């Protein structure tokens, strides 16, 4: 397994700096909540649906309390107080609040101890539902099994969820193990979650609970047919990151794209907002037994893959520490990277091998997510198919886990049904033909690949030391990742960040921290 002769001491030092970096940010996280976190709390209590104007009920309730400046106590405090007084169910109470027949702030206040007890009981009951979905997944996998690593991961992106379901089933029959439904562009910047099935999206569908349900059902059906549990993936990112985590946990998604910094860097979402949101979303994902995928592969679409290889590793170590803070296990961390070196580079494939093997060895227990070439795909589909083949070879040679299939028509259009078929067919061919190759090869002592991997590791650790020194927010402002610079006060969503009062009530946090790890 260990082929790179990496110094464990250097790796440990990298983890130590990454932990320091995250500890600094955690102080900010612990002191704040956000409107999205508070909406997630309401969703966890079972509140669903939209008002006559199409605004989700959870938005209506949280916005009113936010405007009144009382969210520092937590939405749970106000809402549970309301439930105690009105004896209504959470959904009924939510509807009354939005219809303005009940005003939470005008109700008499029950003593805090009583509210806390009731909130705790409600939270325990809500989490039982999520635990049930998790056990359901485990039972499915125990009876059907799942795909062999590297698992074949494909995307569907028709814009119509019913068409997506058809394409997803077709892909599973062709051999796909994981299906991601591409999210329609732009959702990450919406500060609410759309409602209902999507039939007219562009380049994808919205992440909605109805869409999750439709795909889950389709994949369960086809899973029985192909005798393999098919993983469902969606995007737990953007301004509603934690709410999507709730929906995914309730509808038994298996994989969620969920990065601690992606929204900041690539969607210009405010970092103070994102850090708090990612924490709560990962508590949920952790507790639900979901595998998260991080987005370091994206760095290489803007920055150069050879020059910036170490930023990928550094970011993975930071993402890992953020996840550990939520008590996620290593086995839940699909840390991301990509095959994005310019194909004209002499020995480019050796650089790719070095990076892929490096990530594998630094995170031996994690289901590493490996992304295909995109930046240097040209429209020459024949050459593209060969580039994807080299990517497949690299993946099986270095033991990657979640293998996102390259598609020969990348850079032309979203995949056609036969594009995906050809891609699955060739990956299956390569993986089957090279099944045992990783056990048969080693890399020459002190050779190019070992040296390159050691150099990337050293540079990553130096970068982490540097970031630990100046702080992550400052590092982001200086454009350390993907050459993109973001300031702590800039970007979208800052007005949705709330300072917690000392009486802030959210029993989900301690419960999920307790349950996430032990449950796995």
């Amino acid at each position, binding site marked *: 397994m260990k082929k790179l002769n990496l110094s464990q001491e250097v790796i440990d030092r990298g983890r130590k700096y990454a932990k320091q970096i995250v500890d600094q940010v955690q102080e900010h996280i612990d002191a704040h909540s956000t409107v999205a976190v508070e909406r997630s709390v309401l969703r966890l209590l079972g509140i669903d649906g939209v008002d006559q104007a199409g605004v989700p009920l959870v938005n209506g309730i949280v916005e009113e309390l936010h405007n009144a400046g009382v969210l520092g106590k937590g939405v749970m405090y106000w809402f549970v107080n309301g439930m105690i007084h009105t004896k209504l169910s959470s959904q009924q109470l939510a509807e009354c609040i939005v219809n303005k027949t009940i005003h939470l702030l005008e109700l008499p206040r029950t003593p805090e101890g009583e509210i806390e007890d009731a909130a705790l009981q409600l939270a325990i009951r809500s989490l039982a539902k999520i635990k049930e979905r998790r056990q359901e997944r485990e039972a499915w996998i125990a009876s059907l099994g799942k795909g062999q690593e590297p698992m074949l991961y494909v995307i569907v992106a028709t814009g119509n969820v019913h068409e997506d379901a058809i394409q997803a*089933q077709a892909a599973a*029959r062709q051999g796909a193990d994981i299906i991601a439904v591409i999210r329609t*562009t732009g959702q990450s910047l919406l500060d609410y979650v759309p409602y209902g099935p999507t039939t007219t999206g562009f*380049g994808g569908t919205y992440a909605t609970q109805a869409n999750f349900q439709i795909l889950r059902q389709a994949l369960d059906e086809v899973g029985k047919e192909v005798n393999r549990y098919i993983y469902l993936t969606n995007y737990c990112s953007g301004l509603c990151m934690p709410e999507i985590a709730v929906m995914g946990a309730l509808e038994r998604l298996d994989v969620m794209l969920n990065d601690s910094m992606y929204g900041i860097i690539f969607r210009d979402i405010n970092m103070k907002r994102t850090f708090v949101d990612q924490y709560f979303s990962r508590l949920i994902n952790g507790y639900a037994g979901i595998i998260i995928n991080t987005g370091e592969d994206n760095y290489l679409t*803007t920055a150069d893959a050879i020059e910036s290889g170490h930023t990928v590793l550094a970011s993975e170590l930071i993402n890992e520490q953020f996840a550990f803070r939520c008590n996620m296990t290593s086995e839940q961390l699909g840390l991301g990277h990509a095959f994005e070196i310019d194909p004209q580079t002499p020995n480019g494939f050796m650089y790719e091998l070095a990076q892929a093997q490096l990530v594998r060895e630094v995170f031996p227990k994690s289901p590493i997510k490996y992304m295909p070439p995109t930046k240097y795909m*040209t429209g020459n589909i024949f050459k593209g198919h060969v580039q994807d083949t080299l990517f497949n070879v690299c993946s099986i040679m270095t033991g990657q886990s979640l293998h996102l299939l390259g598609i020969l028509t990348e*850079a032309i259009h979203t995949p*056609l*049904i*036969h594009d995906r078929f050809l891609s699955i067919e060739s990956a299956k061919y390569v993986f089957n033909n090279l099944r045992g190759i990783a056990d048969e090869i080693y890399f020459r002592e002190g050779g190019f690949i070992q040296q390159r991997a050691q150099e990337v590791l050293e540079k990553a650790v130096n970068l982490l030391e540097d970031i630990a020194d100046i702080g992550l927010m400052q590092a982001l402002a200086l454009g350390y990742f993907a050459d993109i610079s973001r300031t702590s006060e800039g970007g979208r969503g800052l007005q949705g960040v709330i300072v917690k009062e000392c009486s802030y009530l959210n029993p989900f946090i301690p419960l999920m921290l307790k349950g996430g790890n032990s449950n796995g």
Partner: protein
Amino acid sequence: MVDVNHVKPYGDTLNDGMVQLSFTLPIPLSNAAKEAARQLTASMGLEEAAVAHAEGISDTFSFFIVYGKCSHGVNIVGITVPEVALEVLSKKEIDDFIRTHLNRKLNVVGACIESDAHTVGIDAIMNIKGFNGHKGLESYHEINAVNMGAQVACEEVIHKVYEIQADAILISQVVTQKNIHITNLTRLVDMLEAEGLRDKVTLVVGGPRISHELAKELGYDAGFSSNTYAEHVASFLVQEVKRKNVWDSSKETG
């Protein structure tokens, strides 16, 4: 000798008309499905259509790779394709050109607008490192290049145009579905016109599905497709801005 009035596809013999294509039919694979694929190919004007490969790719879909001989030829005499008319300058020549004619930096805003999340194109043209060894606009001394990234709303582009007093706007549209790129591009032009900015800036669009002709049709000054580098775009910008003669040295440099 190639007959320029009647050019046909070439496989291994002049005028053999050889064409390869692949497609999927939404029906289960059967001999009838194969014959259907052959007949369909024939009806496209391909003679001696031969199904080289047929495979069921799901219970309800079958995939075909077909060869046929194109019965048509095309007259290339008299075909004119609108192309961006420009003299390609080097990076240094572009910087010199701006210095000579403007006395201040050229302000350029770039963005991949609305639905599109793919920065590959705009980055290739604007980022310092550029693409394929061709440095991007950010590396030009005399260009103040602001790359707004992906999924930028048209409103934000316009805001930025005012903010940096942009001379030119570069728009990228890479991945599209159901022609949404056309909707996006039209929206920006409409908004620029409503703001009275359209004539004050040079407006350029790029992307794999963009041609100069389409760009002109949509109201842009130029369209660039694949194999375009920063120096092509910059050469066009400086020459176009000079031609329009709207250089206004009073503009501040951002």
